[in-house]
């Protein structure tokens, strides 16, 4: 990577880090891990910088790398060693409270298998189509459909279970 390219890369990092960190946080559910994930993806991007001809393709490359890295189950061992946020005290869940709803949804989202979670994040946060998600994650469209459907079903079921326990409407 020559000097001019490195300057362009630095400019990309400066302008896009916050947006990338937000996506990464949704993928892995932890701020520290999100920073690790973005850094990992950016280093891979730096190594591939000279091969990525289209400037518009750079962000897609980083996002694809983040998503595939986050869904690589073999990262699990490393992540198992990491500290994550603690569960909000759900014993207070005795009333309908929008912030609680968000927390419950978030809690259950974080406990979905990584691929289901990634598909839901790409669909409902990034706004990608099924075809785009399939391309990003390297899955078939059928697999994307299946992960989305199973993830949504699991979220509905778990939120309904919460509601049954606490008397809060799901």
């Amino acid at each position: 990577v020559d000097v001019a390219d490195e300057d362009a890369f630095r400019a990309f990092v400066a302008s896009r880090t916050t947006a990338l960190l937000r996506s990464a946080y949704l993928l892995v559910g932890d701020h520290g891990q999100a920073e690790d994930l973005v850094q990992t993806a950016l280093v891979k991007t730096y190594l591939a910088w000279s091969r990525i001809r289209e400037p518009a393709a750079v962000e897609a490359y980083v996002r694809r790398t983040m998503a595939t890295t986050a869904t690589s189950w073999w990262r699990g061992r490393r992540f198992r060693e990491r500290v994550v946020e603690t569960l909000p005290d759900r014993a207070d869940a005795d009333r309908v409270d929008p912030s609680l709803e968000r927390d419950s949804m978030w809690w259950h989202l974080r406990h979905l298998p990584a691929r289901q979670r990634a598909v839901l994040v790409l669909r409902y946060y990034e706004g990608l189509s099924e075809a785009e998600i399939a391309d990003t994650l390297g899955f078939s469209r059928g697999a994307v459909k299946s992960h989305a459907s199973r993830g949504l079903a699991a979220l509905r079921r778990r939120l309904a279970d919460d509601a049954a326990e606490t008397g809060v409407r799901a």
Partner: protein
Amino acid sequence: MNEFERRLERTLLARAETVVAGQRLSGDAVVAAGRSAHRRRRTAAAAIVAAAVAVIVGAGVLAQTRDLGATPVPPGSASPSAVDTPPAPVPFGSVGVSLMGYDRIVTPEGTSVPLRGPKGFGSIQTVRVPDGWVLLLNGVANREEVTQVWFQSGDGDAVRVGDLMSYFEVSRDGRRVATHDGDLGTMAVYELPSLRRLARVSAPTENAYVAGIGGDWVVMAESVATWRESRAHAWNIVTGEVISTHAGVEVWGVSRDGQVLRRVADGASKACVDLVPIGQVGRDAGGWCTAELAEDGMRGALAPSGGWVMLHDYRDGRDHRYWVGVADIRVGAGRPVPIAIRIGLESGFFWDTDSSFVVSSKSGETYRCQPVRPCQPLIVPQTQGSLTLFGSVG
């Protein structure tokens, strides 16, 4: 989009906004890391050759010992005795440990063995068994990142056990390997070195992974985003029986005689650690129960002998709190016994014998440790960021 999906969308947007704008990753730091990665790629091949020479002649770069004594001791334990003068460093091969790097393995005897798997693939996990090596290889094929389990025999032939495998576990006699079987929905056990499939079963969940193998049992856990307690599943490969636990169990290891070390949450502020036969992994918690064991960063690993537990506390890198302790759970009370090691622990370690383990410090040094004895620094090549040590079974 229905109301439930809109609610999910709102949750994601609200959560994303908790990441505040600001420069937390500098372009300079990423460029420096990228340059370093580029250099490592170029130098790893040379380093691994040098490593083979280093094993034989006992030369090399000395592992440094500046981390010793730098970190706090485990809460609730007696202070470790003053760390004795560390033993002199020895070449990694002299303690029976092998080295994996780039495209070859260096055996403890100093023999350099080329990897026969796909070109350009690197090993994520390697175990030496009596007839060769079991490897988890990761690389890019047809523009897709793939991971495969391979068996490479001692005479150099390599056989792919299957695609889309996850981490594997090898029995302590080195004769059985358990992993996914071709897709994430099936688990299987293979005989080594024949690779004859002994048994297979549908995975209890799609996020299950193999956590250990002992006797005729395989224990599985579930990967969840938090990497904490989940359900555990014990599968008997002879009868096909699968026993599942309730949520809240964290499997910390399986001994060679099939005892499982578990951490079980006991309320919000206490957790218990105990040893149970692998077929009873779902039974109620007992054993050693303390508040410290419930802490987020607390992790443990069971020595293959079943007699010792290595405890390590991993705190977020921001406050850099790490320590390693050892508890002799055979005494029943579970009192943590200080071990003469106070190393800023990196997450990776492995048992190289029934009662000793090899651990890397945060600053890159490598030690071989046994309970209540000073850790032995190991001489490893300078570019160990690209090289990893691994042990053997059987």
